[in-house]
């Protein structure tokens, strides 16, 4: 057979997805007015636009949630639409799992499930949902373009015009990645908006990528997730922050970085303008950030530490402040923040010197996890940033500093820092013999234990005891000893031989506060550039407008 014969014989249609989409769109012709679906007929419209077995990507991360569309999806009739394969960054709202309990969906690929971590574990155990995989954000976005291409996308925006152009404001977040994967593969894009307007402040998503707009009953859910009240920062965290600045940031000349969400790193942000200034480090370190707009970074921005910040998402209350600091933040022509989770994750993975974050459990090898006692929390983006990206090829001082051999082909390393107190509140040890994640992973039938950050990626561990320079360890044993040396009176630290710790200090694998020129008694709350949310507002010149729950004055 020649080529012509083969082509003739196959009789294959090359437009099945396009034809299918056209057929679905025609089913809602009598409901929709142009691109607009009426609010009170959204459930009916979804029943016509979504087919059994579809891959449906539902927008929701730890900040913005397409809450009207998720609540509507939970109301559709499982006799008509069922066996959906849901793809979701975050399982956050009760109805995200209700759709599985009701039999509307059966398969799930996701990234993070913190707020529903017990229920999701129970439902996996009971066979009520089948998990494809738990991803990091970047893997999940990546697979939207490879083998998890959506049939339908349900997303949220602030405003739309009647042509379907979208304004996502400060909370653009996942929206472009999700819509791109759907719109350009003949999927159907349905967007809930807070309001329909004649003219948008700016266009974040062009209308030709969007099929339908529905005005939501209530504005989409938005959490102020990255606001840390400085009142709750302890002197132990301040001590750890001083050690990190002195023993890591300064020592390795860290120029660009990502901070985790905890009070530990919030302490560092508030120490830069005080302790960092005393060390003469302004303008020398911490200039470029991949970071959500943390309110605790305001004093460092105001005192000239920060040159640029690219953000995953917005932060409630920071909008006006950001719009007045366009040299620092990425903003649109309307003046408001432009965030983009996918790009910021890429930046945090490949383009920064250092990731520093906290964890709930760390084992003797430095593997860490936020999974505890039967709760499957998932990953989010921390593993994207908290690992050594071996494809990276550009060198920086900090990167090169991790080289410990004379090998001509030696490569640098990203700094991955774990910063933890040796015990959680309630006295549970952070350093443990074995991660709870192993048991939880086994119960859920996962092919791998859900480890957040692998020990072999971790270059430093900071605790209230000191800093362990793991990248210098020449063997696994030495690595374990260095971890044990800073693990305090936990199952990992309590049997550490003081003589071994002494040897590690001599060799520079471990530094105690005094080795860094830090007196424990100097770690006082008076060192914080702001000691309350009120003082953050002052630093911002009144531009930061904290949500009510953070106001105490």
């Amino acid at each position: 057979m020649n080529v012509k014969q083969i082509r003739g014989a196959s009789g294959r249609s090359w437009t099945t997805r396009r034809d299918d989409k056209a057929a679905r769109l025609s089913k809602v012709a009598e409901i929709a007015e142009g691109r607009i679906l009426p609010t009170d007929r959204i459930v009916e419209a979804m029943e016509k636009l979504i087919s059994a077995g579809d891959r449906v990507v539902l927008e929701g991360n730890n900040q913005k949630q397409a809450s009207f569309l998720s609540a509507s999806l939970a109301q559709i009739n499982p006799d008509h639409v069922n066996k959906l394969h849901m793809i979701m960054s975050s399982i956050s709202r009760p109805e995200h799992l209700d759709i599985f309990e009701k039999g509307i969906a059966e398969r799930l690929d996701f990234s993070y499930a913190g707020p529903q971590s017990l229920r999701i574990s129970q439902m996996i155990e009971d066979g009520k949902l089948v998990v494809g995989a738990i991803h990091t954000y970047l893997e999940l976005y990546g697979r939207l373009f490879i083998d998890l291409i959506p049939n339908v996308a349900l997303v949220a925006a602030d405003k739309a015009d009647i042509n379907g152009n979208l304004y996502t404001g400060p909370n653009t977040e996942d929206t472009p990645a999700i819509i791109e994967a759907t719109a350009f593969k003949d999927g159907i894009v349905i967007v809930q908006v807070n309001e329909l307007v004649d003219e948008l402040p700016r266009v974040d998503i062009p209308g030709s990528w969007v099929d339908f707009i529905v005005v939501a009953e209530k504005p989409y859910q938005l959490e102020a997730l990255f606001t840390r009240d400085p009142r709750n920062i302890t002197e132990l965290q301040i001590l750890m922050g001083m050690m990190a600045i002195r023993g890591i940031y300064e020592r390795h000349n860290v120029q660009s970085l990502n901070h985790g969400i905890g009070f530990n790193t919030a302490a560092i942000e508030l120490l830069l303008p005080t302790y960092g200034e005393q060390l003469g480090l302004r303008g020398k370190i911490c200039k470029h950030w991949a970071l959500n707009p943390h309110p605790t970074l305001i004093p460092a921005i105001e005192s000239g530490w920060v040159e640029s910040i690219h953000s995953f998402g917005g932060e409630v209350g920071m909008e006006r402040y950001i719009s007045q600091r366009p040299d620092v933040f990425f903003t649109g022509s309307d003046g408001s923040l432009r965030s983009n989770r996918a790009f910021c994750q890429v930046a945090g993975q490949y383009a920064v010197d250092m990731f520093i974050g906290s964890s709930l459990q760390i084992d003797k090898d430095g593997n860490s996890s936020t999974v505890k006692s039967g709760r499957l929390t998932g990953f989010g983006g921390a593993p994207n940033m908290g690992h050594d990206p071996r494809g990276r090829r550009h060198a920086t001082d900090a990167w090169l500093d991790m080289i410990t051999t004379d090998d001509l082909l030696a490569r640098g390393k990203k700094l991955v820092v774990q910063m933890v107190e040796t015990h959680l509140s309630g006295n549970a040890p952070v350093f443990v013999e074995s991660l709870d994640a192993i048991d939880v992973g086994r119960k859920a039938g996962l092919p791998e234990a859900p480890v957040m950050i692998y020990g072999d990626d971790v270059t430093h561990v900071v605790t209230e005891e000191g800093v362990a320079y793991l990248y210098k360890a020449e063997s696994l044993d030495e690595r374990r000893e260095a971890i044990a040396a800073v693990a305090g009176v936990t199952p990992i630290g309590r049997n550490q031989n003081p003589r071994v710790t002494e040897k590690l200090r001599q060799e520079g694998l471990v530094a105690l506060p005094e080795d860094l020129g830090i007196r424990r008694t100097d770690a006082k709350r008076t060192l914080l550039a702001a000691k309350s949310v009120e003082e953050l507002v002052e630093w911002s010149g009144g531009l930061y407008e904290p949500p009510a729950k953070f106001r105490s004055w």
Partner: protein
Amino acid sequence: MAVAFLFPGQGSQQTGMLHELPMHPAVSRTLEEASELLKTDILSMDTEGKLRSTAAAQISLLTASVATARALQEEGATPDMVAGHSVGAFGAAVIAGVLEFEEALTLVKKRGEYMEQAFPDNYGMGVVLGLSQPELSSVLKNNNADDSVYIANINSPDQIVLAGQIKALEQAFELVLKNRARKAFLLNVSVPSHCSLLQPVTVKLAALLEAIPLREPDIPYAGNRTARPLRNAKAIREDLALSLSNPVRWHDATSVLFELGARLFIEMPPGQVLTDLAAKEFQGARSLSISVNGLKTAAILIEQEKAKL
């Protein structure tokens, strides 16, 4: 967001508890119903002496909690979900619409009597503070103590109740205190509930429950045994029977309610044991007890909570 009603179990009973219930027509009516069915004045049951009996304590707990929940309901302050600790589960089942109060009262009376008959003395329960369940289990297992004492309640990540013979419990306390437990002491309970020793009582209770017609719940009920949100009568009935021979997974049961959206936990009288547990575990939620705060405050807060997004 959602409102959860919590129903306390044995240990929460207090002298005078029925006399101290809020004044409300629904409360008086429920007390009358109970007296009629029991053929005795229920208000004579909450003396110190009478409450020493397991059956009297459990009957009083059921009556107090259902009476108060009904009063709230009549004020328009309805729950979106319920959970009850141990015998409290029967009150939760009544308010979920699965059992009639009269049915629950008959069941609880029998339950109490069976429990008293099963273990006359030298058995009991004790609490261990400061160890997690996996830690506690491994301490018991490594010392071959896990076949004489049983994990009976997991009330919070570091508050666990054991059941067994008093002597075995005292030996277990010595062990756990040597292994970093913060505190361990006996509770004033004479029956080793929520472990396999109660298997025979479970069988009898299941037979009684079988005879009652199935009524589907109006709202989710968090199970003691599985800590799952239960949404059908069969599963709830199974939980009411089997919970006596299985640990009460209270921490998980209330965590599930939190994940389902509960941001206001209201504990029925008497006491505030469950309120304190919830307040400690769920910092994003508000917890209060009717015993401390009264009906009116609760009704107002319930209305406010339901109006929130």
